[in-house]
């Protein structure tokens, strides 16, 4: 209960006063260091009273490309007009508003599309002790294929069918046929996870939805939560019923306030309909579901770190094995899926696994949601078939590049996979990939690359949920530095390679950016990258070097001017 109680104290006092923490320690019988190690881990918790108004400007990827630094400087100017210590401006990690970058927070409230003048107005409201308005996003349902109930009421039909005929194996088989894979980016077959948890011995099991969505460039879960919360709720109920988990949580990042409210309301509705809670649709089936509000941080998206946070610990990834399906939350078998993965389950069961499988194009299977941001005309969330090419995505979904820019590069997995250029000389392609191209090809046009995990993998890259498109004016060294800085900010600090490596790498790139970087330093970057990939505990440490290694690989001419 540490996390919730800290949030409660912070809400009441504005920060975490020492006396309150001491009283809490006594009340719940946990030593002071246990409370402090959690309180000091999450930047959301303040151990000292802060200024009256804090303006936090997102510093990551899409916001960075859209001029977050300029906004930050402008707000510094605004802050200096007020008395000292009244207003503070600081950077913050991705707020999940990449489609209307740059985003900002004033105290606890998230805003987007706001000019410095408008933000100033909000600051004044805070100083005048007036409440802040919440900027609301549209909640209307869209005609998505994922929503089998579109146009009508969500009746939890898939749950009802299971209640009538509780055949978990049939559902697992359906998931296998559908080819549904983990939409968080790891692409692990969903049926494998479910069947592992179902087969794990033990009476107590848990189900968790990973809705931490804190990776720069990713905001599709935000839309799914707000516009169609019934899908994720029905998905996790099914996961519970199939695997034998009787308790579940939907873990949502705390900045998603509207989304948290929407999911909470939907859980109430599901319980009222008899689809959740005790005696599901009159049977002996049961599943208790709650929202767990994340104390925040990108690392919480790593599934075992998320579990640690739920157990009131520092969100530090566990050493694996054991895997969560055998020993997860409170060391019980735990089924954890991304919001979108869970959300697809009802439609797959109601419309049939083949329906989902056959949606793919260009030899791929299935469909998915992408969050596109960066230099395109219409950034946003799109439901597309797997196999759609990058060119089709830019032109058809996003209506092309913005402001007359030409397509220069793409980050197909947020910051994690690094970048791909618009066109790759065959000499820089992996041999196997190059061999698959028609003879005589000298350049590979990345616009023709289908968005499919296996295709990206064959280019030594990966396909995540975040797609950031860069236009011709992008500075690749600056972009790589921004991405590596994100990781340095978000490293949990548990293992040496990531704690020290991500920071040193960011420092080295800052030096590179200033120019006159010794050429031998690049060899050290390379050595560090290899050691981080080989020795880090979790995926975060392993992907930290990708932004700079891919820039060095595909844009060496852009790095050249910075070298001594």
């Amino acid at each position, binding site marked *: 209960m540490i996390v919730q109680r800290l949030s409660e104290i912070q809400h009441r006092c504005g920060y975490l006063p020492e006396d309150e923490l001491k009283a809490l320690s006594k009340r719940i019988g946990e030593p002071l260091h246990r409370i402090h190690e959690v309180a*000091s881990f999450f930047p959301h918790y303040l151990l000292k009273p802060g200024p009256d108004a804090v303006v936090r400007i997102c510093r990551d990827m899409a916001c960075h490309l859209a001029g977050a630094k300029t906004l930050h400087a402008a707000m510094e100017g605004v802050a200096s007009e007020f008395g000292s210590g009244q207003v503070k401006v600081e950077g913050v990690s991705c707020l999940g508003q990449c489609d209307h970058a740059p985003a900002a927070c004033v105290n606890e409230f998230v805003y987007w599309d706001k000019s410095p003048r408008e933000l100033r107005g909000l600051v004044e409201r805070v100083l005048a002790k007036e409440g802040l308005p919440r900027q609301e996003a549209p909640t209307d349902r869209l005609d998505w294929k994922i929503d089998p109930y579109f146009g009508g009421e969500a009746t939890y039909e898939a749950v009802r069918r299971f209640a009538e005929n509780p055949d978990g194996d049939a559902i697992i088989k359906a998931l296998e046929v559908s080819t549904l894979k983990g939409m968080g980016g790891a692409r692990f077959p969903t049926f494998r996870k479910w069947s592992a948890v179902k087969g794990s011995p033990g009476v107590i099991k848990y189900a968790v939805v990973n809705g931490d969505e804190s990776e720069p460039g990713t905001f599709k879960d935000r839309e799914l939560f707000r516009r169609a919360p019934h899908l994720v709720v029905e998905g996790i109920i099914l996961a519970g019923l199939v695997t034998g988990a009787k308790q579940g949580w939907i873990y949502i990042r705390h900045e998603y306030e509207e989304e948290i409210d929407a999911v909470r309301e939907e859980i109430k509705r599901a319980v009222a309909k008899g689809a959740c809670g005790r005696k599901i649709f009159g049977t002996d089936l049961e599943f208790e579901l709650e929202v767990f509000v994340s104390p925040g941080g990108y690392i919480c998206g790593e599934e075992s770190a998320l579990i640690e946070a739920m157990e009131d610990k520092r969100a530090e990834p566990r050493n694996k094995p054991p895997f969560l399906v055998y020993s997860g939350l409170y060391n019980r078998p735990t089924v954890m899926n991304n919001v979108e993965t869970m959300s697809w389950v009802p439609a797959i069961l109601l419309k049939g696994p083949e329906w989902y499988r056959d949606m793919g194009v260009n030899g791929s299977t299935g469909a998915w949601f992408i969050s596109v941001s960066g230099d395109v005309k219409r950034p946003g969330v799109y439901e597309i078939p797997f196999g759609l090419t990058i060119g089709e995505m830019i032109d058809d979904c996003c209506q092309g590049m913005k402001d007359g820019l030409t397509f220069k590069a793409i980050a197909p997995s947020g910051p994690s996979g690094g970048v791909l250029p618009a066109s790759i000389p065959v000499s820089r392609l992996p041999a196997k990939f190059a061999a698959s191209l028609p003879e005589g090809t000298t350049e590979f046009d990345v616009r023709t690359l289908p968005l499919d995990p296996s295709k990206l993998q064959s280019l030594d890259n990966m396909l995540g949920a975040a797609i950031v498109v860069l236009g011709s004016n992008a500075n690749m060294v600056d972009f790589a530095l921004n991405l590596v800085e994100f990781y340095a900010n978000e*490293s949990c*600090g548990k293992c040496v390679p990531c704690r020290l490596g991500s920071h040193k790498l960011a420092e080295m790139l800052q030096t590179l950016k200033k120019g006159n970087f010794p050429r031998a330093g690049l060899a050290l970057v390379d050595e560090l990258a290899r050691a981080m990939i080989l020795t880090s505990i979790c995926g975060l440490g392993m992907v930290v070097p990708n932004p700079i290694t891919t820039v060095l690989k595909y844009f060496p001419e852009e790095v050249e001017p910075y070298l001594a």
Partner: protein
Amino acid sequence: MPVILDDMVQFVFEGRTLAVPKTLSEKLSLPPITITIDGHPVEVPQASLKRDEAGRFVYDADGNPILRETTIFDAAIKLSEEAKQRGEDIPISIPILCHREHLTPVAVCRICVVDTDPNGKSKLLPACRQPVDKGMQVKTMATSQRVRDSVGLLTELLMADHPSPCAKHAATKDCELEVIAENLGCTSSRFPRRPKGEDRPHDDSSVVIAVDHSACIMCDRCVRGCNEIRNNQVLGRMNKGYLARIAFDLDAPMGRSTCVSCGECMISCPTGALTNRAVVGITPPDKRDPSKPVVVHADELVTMPLFEGISHPFLKFNDGAVVRKHYKDKDIICKEGDFGSTAYFIEQGEVSVYLSASFKHVKTKKGKGNHGLFGGFIKKFRSELVSRKTDRREGEGTQRFIHIGDSISLDLEKPIAEIKAGGIFGEMTCMNSYPRSATVRALGPVTVLELQRNVLYILQRSKKSKAMLDAIYKERAIESHLRSVPIFARIAETESEFKRLVDRVRPQVDLLRINNGDVIFNQGDLADAFYLIRSGFVKVSQRHLGGDHVLNYLGPGGYFGEIGLLTDLPEVRLLGLPSGRRTASCIALDHVDLVRISGDAFRSLLDEFPTFRSEVIDMAFDRVHENEKTLRDLESSSLASFLDQGLANAQSLLVLDLEKCTRCDECTKACADAHDGVTRLIRDGLRFDKYLVASSCRSCLDPYCMVGCPVNSIHRLNDREILIEDWCIGCGKCAENCPYGNINMHSLPAEWMSDPAHPENKVAVVQQKATSCDLCHGLSSPSCVYACPHDAAHRMDGQELLALVKASHK
């Protein structure tokens, strides 16, 4: 309540017979497997049992050994040792920093990574944590270039921020990181250094230990040492990422934290981050202030008989942990109920030990009353302090002497004793962090050595010092100790007989020290001795219905182990106990000092002293009956989910029916009225369906409140109610222990009392006594139930509540 779902089986492990859960024995019985390390085959067991630094088995809270999967690093050690026995040399080519065999592996430094992929492609794995797998082919840095590169680079990263040489390396050349860096030839780093700044400060606030955060590599060894090994719960990690560092409590300076200076963190630290001040040459504060106690340095300590067996380097390493203090006549050295972390050795002079609390308990009496309209609807009561002479409670002890630990017993009639030069006191508080059990005052000028825990610990482990302290106990304290043990009470009525018995016992006793968590004996073991507790607490539990159930907690002055020695006596045989076997398991909950009397010696005492024999048998019968009752109660309880809440345990719950309850709080008011304005009831607690279980004594089957009472004044009666004996000193430990907040401290007006040490003086003593729900003794129904105007409050046991909840579901 610990529930073991496994059956227990006897298992022979490395020549020792252990009782282990079945699943654990299955894992231990797996056939050994062979792996290769750098091409050398080695055969290892798949699992073993966890041990501490000294190689002793470690047990969990339920007294079971802990399984430890064999890791690649374990296999590397075995390979190297076996080679040595054959006269070959296969060095362990896996460096370690964050790992030590007795600590739970965390695998954070990654310096021990090895390659297990024959294709040399996938991630490297930490040898300290990775379990061995059949046929595994391990390559260490001796044979793998990518392992060598990675280990070198990680070392370089660590060295980039390490102040080289750090305090430890400068003084003793043994900073583990710098040694590894020297061996790998990467003492200089190509990475930018961490700028000097506030985020990695020096902390010189502790008298003993110097903290240099800039030398810390976040290996987590000190944190595990503090919390896992010592269970002191002071050290943790703070912040995240590059700013992460260790912190005491809420990041307090070490010297102002709850740290007890046990020294474990300092011993655990591989670098110069936590070092002894003397070693790194930082002047302790006392040198600057002559009015403060004076540190006694190693050079002087080694000349004293008490420290004769302690190594000079240890004393030097712990410089500052022994200070000399001088007291004038009547100065108070320590006070009952205070917390502390030190013990005292009297060098010169004499001290008196006494209790200043009044020997009374809180009694509720009918007041004049405000009889309501309906005659007695509202009852008025008041509380006062009365002694057992005027208000005898059922089940109350009759003993005249009470044991206050430290091998001192006080006569309730005249609760004062003396300790002479050469004696030691305060060990129980020092070792186990219990409140001081008595007040100690100087009788004339006194010089004492105040010892920190790490020094006391090593004294008790050193043969010579222990022999000296044991001799003092046997010579001076044993008589007083035995006098306070209930089993000797009857024979103590005849002084000459008692003296004869003490003289018989004296040469026969062994004095033992048991570490927290260690099993003294297991149920079913051969009974070979009888034990008396000098200090610390012992958990007595019995296996029943597949679970392990606490029968009792025994504290200072307690005794155990007699039943197994009595089973073959004709009077006892009819109880049908297993002959010569232990009927329960006993586990040390903290540092426990025991007096062991061998089975033969015990039996000869029985033969020689008939009064003692009959007393022992009577008490054994009582114990056996009490245990049977406990287990009967268990049989009637089910292991429903209910168990998790501890409610099935409960014998008398105050249950509020929330549908009837109007939240008028009359029950709480009635309780407060009945107890002098101090309520023992809080209308809040766990909810079950429409029932609220209000906080009032649950009379738990596992009464954890009893652990830690420094004067052993909290007892449990046959009906499981808690009784607080008159000699409660009001320290509040039981109130702190009760997980349900149901023991409250009741303050009563100051009373003028004669000072036990100086009877001519009268002093005002503010009385504070522990109280718990007494079910309103003497009234037909508890006040709270009686007062409820809505029939919403009822008293019932856990099973009745379970039945109600179930019924309301149907």
